[in-house]
């Protein structure tokens, strides 16, 4: 092998492994997140909401940011997860929340798998429509089967059993928050592993150019079906977390607003790097909290204005404004700097 090829190969493998390495900021992010358990015990209720919203946005990022599928009906899977979790607890089928959480996620995944065949046909507009249609259909189903779901009144009288039989869901949401945070962290680790695997890279290839991806031997449809089902699983878990922490599920979980808000959450944080959903969820909830105090009824107006402004200014330009921040972040990664210095020294030796 000539030295030119081997240096290209090394650079390629370096750039691939650089994606996988944990950046110091990531570590700080999670330390701060877990420190919130003790730092702000009075704000655990809103932080619980941030945790499940972050997970929900993360699941949308998997299909929008990685696979490039625009969905306006992601609430469908969120809703399935929420109703399944609430029904399991209400009828005491599965009393243990963690197990119920898994079952709810799997149920949402099954729905995702079945509907993926519908959604993956046709153009962006068709995808948009069918995803929206599926969510509306499920909402209608939940509305019609009132004897099971409580219809428009929502599913009431859900009593949650302690997590793992040990930790009760308390009134102030302390245990609920820790529970959501741990679930979020575990699923984030899985998503991170997935996104940096060859599978994740093949998704990015599909997003950038489906035709070329197919030409280099990536089974496009199969990959999209898999990631759509996985994203549905994540969304279902997020919905189940909502149902378990609030002991309630209503038709609202399927609503169009929820899907649209979710897109906003993801866009605020940025797509395609997994943290976008989490950061977006934090900013969105704080903003919603602030605006809904300011103008209780009309805060969607400002949400809409923000969306319009972000598109008109252009997301590329907003990313460019962050450049100094990202530069700083790159400097913070001392291991990478050290390695680059070593590589430069090695090059000089030759």
């Amino acid at each position, binding site marked *: 092998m000539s030295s030119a090829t081997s240096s290209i190969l090394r650079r390629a493998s370096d750039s691939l492994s650089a994606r996988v390495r944990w950046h110091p900021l990531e570590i700080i992010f999670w330390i701060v997140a877990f420190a919130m358990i003790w730092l702000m015990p009075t704000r655990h209720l809103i932080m619980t909401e941030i945790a499940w919203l972050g997970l929900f946005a993360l699941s949308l990022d998997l299909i929008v940011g990685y696979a490039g599928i625009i969905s306006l009906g992601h609430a469908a899977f969120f809703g399935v997860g929420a109703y399944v979790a609430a029904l399991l607890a209400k009828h005491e089928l599965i009393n243990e929340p963690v197990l119920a959480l898994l079952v709810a996620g799997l149920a949402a995944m099954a729905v995702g798998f079945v509907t993926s065949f*519908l959604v993956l046909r046709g*153009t962006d507009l068709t995808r948009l429509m069918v995803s929206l249609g599926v969510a*509306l*259909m499920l909402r209608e189903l939940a509305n019609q089967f009132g004897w099971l779901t409580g219809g428009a009144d929502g599913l009431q009288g859900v009593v949650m059993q302690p997590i793992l039989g040990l930790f009760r869901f308390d009134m102030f949401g302390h245990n609920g928050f820790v529970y959501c945070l741990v679930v979020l962290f575990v699923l984030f680790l899985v998503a991170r592993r997935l996104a940096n695997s060859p599978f994740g890279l093949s998704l990015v290839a599909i997003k950038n150019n489906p035709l070329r991806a197919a030409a280099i031997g990536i089974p496009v449809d199969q990959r999209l079906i898999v990631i759509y089902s996985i994203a549905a699983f994540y969304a279902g878990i997020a919905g189940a977390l909502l149902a378990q922490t609030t002991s309630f599920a209503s038709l609202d979980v399927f609503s169009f607003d929820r899907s649209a808000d979710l897109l906003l959450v993801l866009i605020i944080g940025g797509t395609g790097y997994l943290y976008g959903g989490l950061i977006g969820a934090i900013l969105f909830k704080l903003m919603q909290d602030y605006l809904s105090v300011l103008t209780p009824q009309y805060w969607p107006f400002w949400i809409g204005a923000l969306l319009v402004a972000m598109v008109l200014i252009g997301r590329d330009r907003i990313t460019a404004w962050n450049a100094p921040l990202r530069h700083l972040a790159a400097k913070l990664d001392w291991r990478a700097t050290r390695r680059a210095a070593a590589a430069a020294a090695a090059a000089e030796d030759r």
Partner: protein
Amino acid sequence: MLTILFDGVAYGMLLFVLACGLSVTLGLMNLINLAHGAFAMAGGYATVVLVNNFGVPFFLSLPLAFLVAAVIGLVMERAVYVHVYRKPHLEQVLLTIGLVFMAVAGTDYIMGSTQVFAQTPEVLQGQFQFFGVGIGRYRLLIIVVCGVLAIGLQAILTKTRFGSRLRAAVDDQRVARGLGINVNAIFALTFAFGSGLAGLGGALGTEILGLDPTFPLKYMIYFLIVVTVGGTSSITGPFLASLLLGIGDVAGKYYVPKLGAFVIYTIMIVVLIWRPNGLFSRASTK
């Protein structure tokens, strides 16, 4: 039975007038405009305010509603939409959802959140019997107005020079530009006209569809169904799709009220599985 068919046709015609602007703009600029319903709402509120507050006759208020919506459409197109034609679909979706949210909350703020109606003249109230079929006068008006509009639009599209330019631009924008057709001007005009039609539809529809600030959200799915099922390459496609949707929805709600809106979603999904590019679309040339 025939009355249901009649009501369905009226409903479908109304949907056609509401949605045909959307199908042309989508076909022309490949623009996904979820905020189309907001223009319809603008027309509806224009009629309500004109008739109820200023005592303008109902029939005169209809063209005024068209004008109001068309002017708003023209301004919005030049100010906002023009920036996103070349952007990915995700950006267009975000922008137009943002506009919908603003329109809903803004209208709520200005007009209040309750449902409003325009007072219709007595000529249009009640129904009469025609060979045993109960025919609502108002619905008859809708069918006449929308039928005339549909025929007129078809004539404009096929017989006039503007129509042939528009069709050329829809078929292949680049070649049309190369032939010296000012596609941007055509698009601005078409967008304004389509918004105006939506406004007229909204004005006519206050009686049947109801009008409140959530109108753009409630009927967005209907417009999109018309467009996706009908395809974007002609006017007949959306027209037939609207009729199908209107009759299906009315019949579904009458015969199987328990299923509610389920019927139309099922129709839509079945059609899209069968023909992903729309029921009446030609083979895509792009």
